[in-house]
């Protein structure tokens, strides 16, 4: 009897202890990312979604997009509290906030760090984004809290270059000099979360930065876990082991996760526009009629239906929708198989044509390409697809080895950057100034160049629209669809803002992000 009473008392005590003293919200966030490992934590070399997502939590820019947006009109102060420019937009002065601290023992942010960071971002030896800063003539610190930038020529959006995106992140000069090449594994920024540790192929741990200039973050710890298997990542989320998960641009995935209890699927901008870039100098695509036949054979609504209504939308131009200067009225043609066949016949291919191309094995991109392949086949165009792994794909398309290149990308939301990188002759692959012009397109150079220095916004937009019309008329590229960013989180996680867009391609974690 005594034993039974003792056991009962012990069980009751254990049950009481199991009840939390107060239902305090969690402060540890666990993120599941589709990755083997993080690559570069040096923001000026962080190019993959895996790297960019986490870099955005560590660093700041001089200015930033309002959290949850990517509208250049909603750019707001970040490390700079105010700025002014000359009337010709060539001289810019940024006034820094006082008392902004870097993580660790790296002291206060000064103009010297900003000058160092922007020079570093514009140096081809240290930055993947150096081309963006080609118009920068001088960057100087006029006092510890003032930075003066002089441009050699006008750029469509100077603020866009110094925002919390790509080359605009500000690093600690002392930290870069201390760590050298190892800075990429010892990131030091001014953001809400500071780097703690990195376990190769497992996870990256971040802690709230108590000295963050916008106030101490509500989350205390962020664990960024690399879970490459889609199934395992989903199961971990379903099992409550992950709070925030990188999703799939796939309607079935969205439907499945939405059906789970306590789950919210985030669908947000930017849409990554997939274009079929047609090499206008390679046979048989050097014949406009063959390119037009491809344009008529592509069925965008069908492709979007395959990808999923929630995750994709039809491409409306050769640059993504919603960018400053993008237009939905650029002369895209609708599907017309009979017309495609007639054009092929006129071009001397009455029995159809076979085009050998190289494509990546990434499942989503390969699936989309196979749908396009089936669509083109109806018009007598056979795509002989040589499937290679993704790294090989990137290498070979830059060697001009594929006359058709399927390429999906999002850029800073101003038409200039997309048009310059994909359709200006200076960006043609193989040239010393190459970027991603796989089509060898050069029909709109005049408009793209003129728009760069046009100070009248209306005229500038007009030039960009004209450039798109010319590119579409020459069929340098056939737009397919735009795929939005897909993540999911548990319902008790509150980002602290409404997530409509994120240029880092992952949800931004701010000082306000918390568990309810």
């Amino acid at each position, binding site marked *: 009897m005594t034993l039974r009473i003792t056991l009962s008392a012990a069980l009751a005590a254990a049950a009481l202890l199991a009840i939390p003293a107060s239902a305090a919200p969690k402060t540890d966030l666990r993120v599941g990312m589709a990755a*083997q*490992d993080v*690559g*570069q934590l040096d923001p000026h*070399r962080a*190019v*993959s979604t895996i790297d960019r997502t986490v870099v955005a939590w560590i660093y700041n820019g001089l200015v930033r997009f309002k959290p949850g947006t990517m509208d250049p009109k909603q750019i707001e102060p970040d490390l700079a509290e105010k700025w002014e420019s000359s009337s010709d937009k060539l001289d810019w002065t940024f006034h820094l906030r006082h008392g902004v601290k870097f993580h660790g023992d790296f002291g206060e942010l000064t103009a010297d760090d900003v000058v160092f960071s922007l020079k570093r971002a514009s140096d*081809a*030896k240290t*930055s*993947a*984004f*150096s*081309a*963006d800063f080609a118009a920068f003539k001088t960057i100087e610190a006029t006092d510890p809290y003032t930075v003066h930038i002089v441009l050699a020529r006008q750029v469509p959006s100077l603020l866009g270059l110094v925002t919390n995106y*790509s080359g605009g992140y500000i690093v600690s000069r002392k930290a870069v000099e201390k760590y050298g*090449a*190892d800075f*990429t*594994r010892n990131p030091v920024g001014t953001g809400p979360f500071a780097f703690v540790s990195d*376990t*190769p*192929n*497992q*996870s990256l741990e971040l802690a709230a930065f108590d000295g963050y200039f916008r106030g101490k973050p509500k989350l205390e710890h962020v664990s960024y*876990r690399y*879970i*490459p*298997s889609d*199934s*395992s990542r989903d*199961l*971990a989320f*379903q*099992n409550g*082991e*992950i709070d925030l998960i990188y999703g799939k641009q796939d309607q079935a995935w969205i439907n499945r996760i939405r059906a789970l209890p306590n789950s919210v699927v985030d669908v947000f901008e930017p849409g990554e526009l997939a274009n079929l870039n047609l090499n206008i100098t390679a046979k048989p695509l050097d014949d406009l009629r063959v390119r037009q036949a491809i344009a008529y054979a592509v069925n965008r609504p069908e492709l979007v239906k395959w990808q999923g209504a929630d995750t994709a939308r039809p491409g409306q131009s050769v640059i993504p929708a919603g960018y400053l200067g993008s237009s939905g009225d650029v002369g895209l043609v609708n599907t017309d198989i009979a017309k495609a066949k007639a054009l092929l016949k006129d071009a001397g291919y009455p029995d159809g044509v076979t085009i050998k191309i190289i494509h990546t094995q990434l499942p989503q991109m390969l699936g989309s390409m196979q749908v396009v392949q089936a669509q083109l086949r109806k018009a007598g165009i056979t795509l002989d697809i040589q499937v*290679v*792994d*993704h*790294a*090989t794909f*990137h*290498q*070979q398309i*830059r060697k001009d080895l594929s006359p058709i290149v399927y390429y999906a*990308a999002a850029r800073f939301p101003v038409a200039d950057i997309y048009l310059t*990188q994909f359709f200006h002759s200076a960006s043609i692959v193989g*040239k*010393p*100034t*190459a*970027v*991603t012009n796989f089509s060898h397109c050069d029909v709109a150079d005049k408009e793209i160049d003129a728009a760069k220095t046009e100070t009248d916004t209306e005229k500038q937009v007009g030039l960009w629209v004209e450039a798109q019309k010319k590119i579409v008329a020459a069929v340098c590229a056939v737009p397919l669809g735009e795929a939005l960013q897909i993540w999911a989180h548990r319902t008790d996680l509150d980002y602290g803002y409404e997530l409509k867009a994120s240029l880092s391609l992952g949800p931004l974690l701010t000082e306000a992000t918390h568990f309810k």
Partner: protein
Amino acid sequence: MIGFIIRRLLASIPTLLAVLTLVFLLVRVVPGDPAIAILGDRATPETLAALRAELGLDRWIGAQYLEFLGHALRGDLGTSMVTHRAVWTEISEALPHTIVLTLAAMVIGCLIGIPAGVWAALHRNGAIDVLTRLLSLLGLSFPVFVSGIFLLIVFALQLHLFPVIGNPRPGDWIDGLHKLVLPAITLGIVMAAYVVRVTRSSMLQVLGEDYIRTARAKGVPRRSIIWRHGLSNALIPVVTVVGLYVGILIGNSVLTEIVFNRPGLGKVIVSALTQRDYTMLQGMMVIYCFLIVVVNLITDISYGLIDPRVKQ
């Protein structure tokens, strides 16, 4: 025995040298540019060229080879091109996890496979034999990413006995053992499927030998015939298969580690391959090769222990 081990180790040196050369050439023959993999699609040719120079990839390939060989012979596997971590540090952190998983799977495979194979052989063409062969076929047919996910759904999601993420807490061996169970069973099932088939056929052959018939005629107890005279002679082919299969297990551990999100060589090598991290790939291949050489050596030594005639 020591002389035998030394002879085998010396014989391994040319193999390892050949592997070093092949590995160096292979990773460079594979298309794909590490600079593009690291810097992405917006880097200019100038930026890419600067990174190639930084990584030493712009130098004559012979000079790169000699440097690699020199460092490798001194035990220095270099630094990862992508992460700037020391290759050996990364491998040494991952290697114990892979070895533990492989050994656990091997033990499970042998514990299930050998008795089941003997049992099937003793009931040749009976219901037990048919059932064992059927289960073995199923074990061989299911890739680890299917059986692994199946185990996760049942034991993690439905029964909540194990976590989905199998990354053990450092220094907590109980947690490590707990998180080892499902991956080890996943790999062990495949191992057992192989072992059961080899044990069965080997036992059948041995049980038909004259000395077994003689032992039976002399009235040796059945248990002694099976375990002492039968199995001990049937084990040599089983040990061969286990030895060979360790190499396959290490290969299969790549998928198992990814499904269960465990640390290990598999995740490291996939990451290195995706990013064309030449130095990491080279280091990984050297270690894999070294492991296979060691396993083969252990297998050869085991022959001697099981059957002393082999040593002669």
